[in-house]
């Protein structure tokens, strides 16, 4: 693992991943508001190119019968194939199941995006 500059933050648009290749690995750089996330482009469920999925605020429901809410500080990535959702703050599945996506540490410095991969 080593920090590598992969792109400029201004290149990454919401709704469209910026794909970078590091060796054999294809990594998607995702943006949600002012937050950036780096994910391996591989869904642990069925191997789909998960970086091509959708990034949305997590939908939360505290109690049946009450209106649901969403948390914009906790975006999720939904896979394009079967819509499994993963918490972009941790890589964990939002459902209480074990599979998780591979994420890489990411930092923005002087307008550049660096990932530790």
């Amino acid at each position, binding site marked *: 693992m080593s920090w590598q500059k992969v792109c400029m933050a201004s290149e990454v648009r919401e709704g469209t991943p910026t794909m970078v290749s590091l060796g054999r690995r294809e990594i998607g750089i995702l943006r949600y508001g002012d937050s950036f996330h780096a994910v391996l482009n591989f869904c642990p469920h069925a191997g789909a190119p998960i970086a091509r999925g959708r990034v949305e605020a997590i939908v939360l429901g505290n109690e*049946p*019968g009450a209106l649901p809410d969403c948390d914009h500080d906790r975006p999720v990535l939904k896979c394009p194939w079967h*819509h499994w959702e993963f918490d972009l703050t941790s890589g964990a599945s939002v*459902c*209480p199941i074990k599979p998780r996506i591979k994420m890489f540490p990411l930092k923005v410095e002087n307008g550049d995006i660096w990932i530790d991969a």
Partner: protein
Amino acid sequence: MQPLIDCDIHQPNPTQEEWCEYLPEPYRSEVARFGPRIISSGIRFEDGGNRWDLGGERNGRTLRDPEFYSEQLLDTYGHRYAILSGNNGHIAGMPDPDYTAALCTALNNYYLDRWLPRDERFLLTLKIPLQDPAQAVREIERLAGTPRVVAVSVFATANRIAFGERYYWPIYEACQRHNLPLHLHPSTTATIANAAMTPAGQAATYLESHVCMPQFYMAQVASMVLNGVFAKFEQLKVILVEGGICWLPHLLWRMDAEFKGLRHQAPFLKRMPSDYVRDHVRLTTQPIEEPSKAEHLLQMFDMIGADDIVMYASDFPHWDFDEPTKLPRALGETTLRRILHDNAAQFFNLPAVPVTEAAIS
């Protein structure tokens, strides 16, 4: 003898004369003058009645006598308890909520007076009018705590409103408060009155209707789980009667699979849908499926964790009655004991088997 708890036996409806004694006015006068209000499925029902060998008298008793059940069922197989389900499915299809509420009260009082005292092994399920949840709650409140009243009976086939909807939540709250499980039973008659007999449309025969019964349970369980009934009512328990068991693995797997991609439509679920089923829902054995390869049934028991969630029911005296010996011996002594007795004893909070009795068995 293996201790036995039977989760579904069917005592007869009272005669009109007996029933009218318990029916409040103005319905008592109405029924006396015009007869009871009648709905019927319109399909041939004769083949779905009682075992033919139970007609006529035995020891001077008939199927109208509680003692007939005691002798021909409870004494014969060694029941510790048997749950009286009644034969009153038509109440779920009645359009008038007040008439239905009066009917339920009359039936409950009749069975409490005329059946429970006749054998201490009888347990009763309460009838309630689903047409009016407020009156249903009042009936639960009226009789909760009555000795040997162990569940609230509802008919779960083609209801106008699926069981997960908030319309029913006052009933579930009352059941939870009084620790009374919901005892779900199919009804062919209620089905025709409320909606289509199967998800595909009307069934032409009793055969077709009866084969499709588990489809209603699949829909009702999915409705209750995915609308958050068990997340809301964490102590609520449900028993599904007369649906068999082999449909459950499909439902559990499909609910879990789809939830992984559509969780945001039920965000109040904190666990996987199958976890709620395992914690809140129990199935009864009858009519146990009969695959051509016996080992396939054992595999199904394994898939659903039968040790914990399956309980025995005979459906006596109906035509598709199952003896307790119909369960595969290959399940093993421990699993059989749990299915035939222990799971139901725990589910209904029934007294433990006395030590001496347990030692003898």
